[in-house]
């Protein structure tokens, strides 16, 4: 339903609007990364911003992930509010040293003398037949690291609103944008703005089973919930939104009411974020469970190129539905 105060947009446009607003509101903000300027961004998120803000603030970098991520950390220490874009999570591994050993660690090593108000955005996830070096979901690794805040916007509202809140955070925030979401279209209130980056959200209420998803798997969990509803099973769908720190309260409130949980996570199953969520449910709600916690994760294989194998490797709606059915017996 379109109202006069709402407009059609896409996830990509919502991200761009968030960047534009941040650049307008705070002169300390600048965007830096590979092809963010003249090319317009690998996924066209920053298209047009170079003309609007100039090359000092929409700063193309060489293919030097470690140097420009570390320079973002240094610039944050120097009083700026950098937004660093890394093309994909796989490339971020070239900057992992800077992210872990500096961004996440400097505050502690310095005894609290410094903090790193840096935002790093990157694309994550599969589904576009980009094979094994452009398709992984490694946000769970980053969510392992104390000192970082990890976000996974899955909706237009969060694509529009998380960036500003992240920029106001005194500590490093990593935003993982699932590559399949950029063309997500819908209606967004024209006054949409900053959103919280602390809590999970209930995207669909239900009482029979809790489906816990984030980022690129939220849509699949919602589709599974619709299908289950046709069978009389009402699933509650939680969008984690913030992967570190996890919002235990929202998860546990839902699971203690539904007594069943299915976690949907595009990361590899072993050592996944889903494993962490499952452990927390077991630790804090074991006696409220009527069935073992189920996990729907990616198969333990580097992402294959052909469509049928990629589909088979990823969490899909039928697997989520089947897992949910198992929990309700």
């Amino acid at each position, binding site marked *: 339903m379109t109202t006069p105060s709402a407009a059609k947009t896409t996830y990509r446009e919502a991200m761009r609007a968030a960047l534009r607003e941040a650049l307008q509101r705070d002169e300390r903000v600048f965007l830096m990364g590979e092809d963010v300027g003249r090319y317009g961004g690998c996924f066209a998120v920053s298209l047009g911003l170079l003309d609007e803000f100039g090359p000092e603030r929409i700063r193309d970098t060489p293919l030097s992930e470690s140097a420009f991520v570390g320079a973002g950390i240094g610039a944050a*220490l120097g009083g700026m509010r950098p937004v660093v874009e890394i093309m994909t999570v796989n490339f971020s591994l070239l900057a992992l040293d800077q992210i872990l050993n500096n961004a996440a660690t400097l505050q502690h*090593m*310095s005894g609290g003398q410094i903090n790193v108000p840096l935002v790093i955005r990157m694309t994550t996830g599969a589904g576009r037949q980009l094979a094994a070096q452009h398709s992984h979901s490694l946000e769970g690794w980053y969510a392992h690291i104390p000192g970082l805040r990890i976000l996974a916007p899955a909706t237009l509202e969060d694509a529009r609103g998380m960036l500003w809140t992240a920029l106001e955070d005194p500590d490093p925030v990593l935003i993982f944008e699932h590559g399949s979401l950029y063309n997500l279209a819908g209606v967004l209130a024209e006054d949409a703005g900053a959103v919280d980056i602390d809590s999970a959200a209930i995207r669909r209420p239900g009482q029979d089973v809790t489906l816990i998803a984030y980022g690129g798997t939220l849509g699949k969990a919602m589709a599974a919930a619709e299908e289950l509803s046709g069978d009389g099973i009402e699933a509650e769908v939680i969008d984690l939104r913030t992967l570190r720190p996890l919002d235990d309260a929202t998860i546990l409130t839902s699971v203690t009411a539904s007594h069943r949980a299915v976690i949907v996570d595009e990361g590899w199953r072993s050592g996944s974020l889903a494993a962490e969520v499952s452990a927390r449910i077991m630790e804090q709600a074991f006696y409220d469970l009527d069935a073992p916690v189920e996990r729907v994760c990616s198969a333990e294989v580097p992402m294959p190129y052909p469509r049928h194998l990629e589909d088979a490797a990823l969490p899909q709606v039928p697997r989520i539905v089947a897992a949910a059915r198992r929990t309700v017996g």
Partner: protein
Amino acid sequence: MLLIRQFEEKCVELYSASEIRGFVHLYIGEEAVAVGVNQALGPDDAIVSTYREHGHALARGIPVESVMAEMYGKATGCSHGRGGSMHLFDVARRFYGGNAIVGGGLPLAIGLALADRMRGQSRVTACFFGDGAVAEGEFHECMNLAALWSLPVLFCCENNLYAMGTALARAQAQTDLAVRAATYGMPSWPVDGMDVVAIEQAACRAAEAVRSGAGPHFLELRTYRFRAHSMYDPELYRDKAEVQEWKRRDPIEALAGRMRAAGEIDDEELAAIGSDLAGQITRAVEAAAAAPLEPVEDLTRFVYSPRSS
């Protein structure tokens, strides 16, 4: 220089007595570099350092008591005891830490310099690193980026000829590091790293150029570590004769000799300085030993910034 030398000699004693632990990388022999470069820096300039940074910290003016307490892991240490020998920080003095990932400080330095440039501040960031860092990909990335963006960084390469136990010639096809740096399009020159006056002159000249907007400059400071890589190693990788040869060029002895010859100092005055410094260090040790530890209840402090909510 004498303060750094005596501080570290005391650290050896304290380490042997198990008063301080962890890795302790001694700077003995290289003191002229920290002191000479610091002469070129003002209080608004920044320093990014390595894990062999006691000398840089003391030359920057971080109080001996504060550094010694950090060696002890005490709450009164310059990093609240959380960092230890390898992670000395003093942001009020714009000392952005000992970084214990070889090459890991270089991106921070160019970022600090980028912030200064974007904010229109005429400041210099001095970035110390060793010859070992030249082998890291980050070195190449940062030299290029600093030159490409004409950032106000003074790169100070402390070439002590060994990356831990690997001689420069075993690690680099081009062992002339000033030549190597020049290929990135920045002014670069070698300096006698045992001569504090030469270092001061070179650093002042370079820092002035950096400050005036001439982009990054690179100093290859040719120096030598007299002691083991960390507290103890059998030093199988270098000849004793080589160490002895370099010790004859001790930077402190060299300066003292020059000043004596010029009539600027005599043995009595030198002894008085040494004795005064020894007293300072003794008092710092006593204070550190008596200082409180961080409470265990504060274990997870300094992971995230305090929140108002």
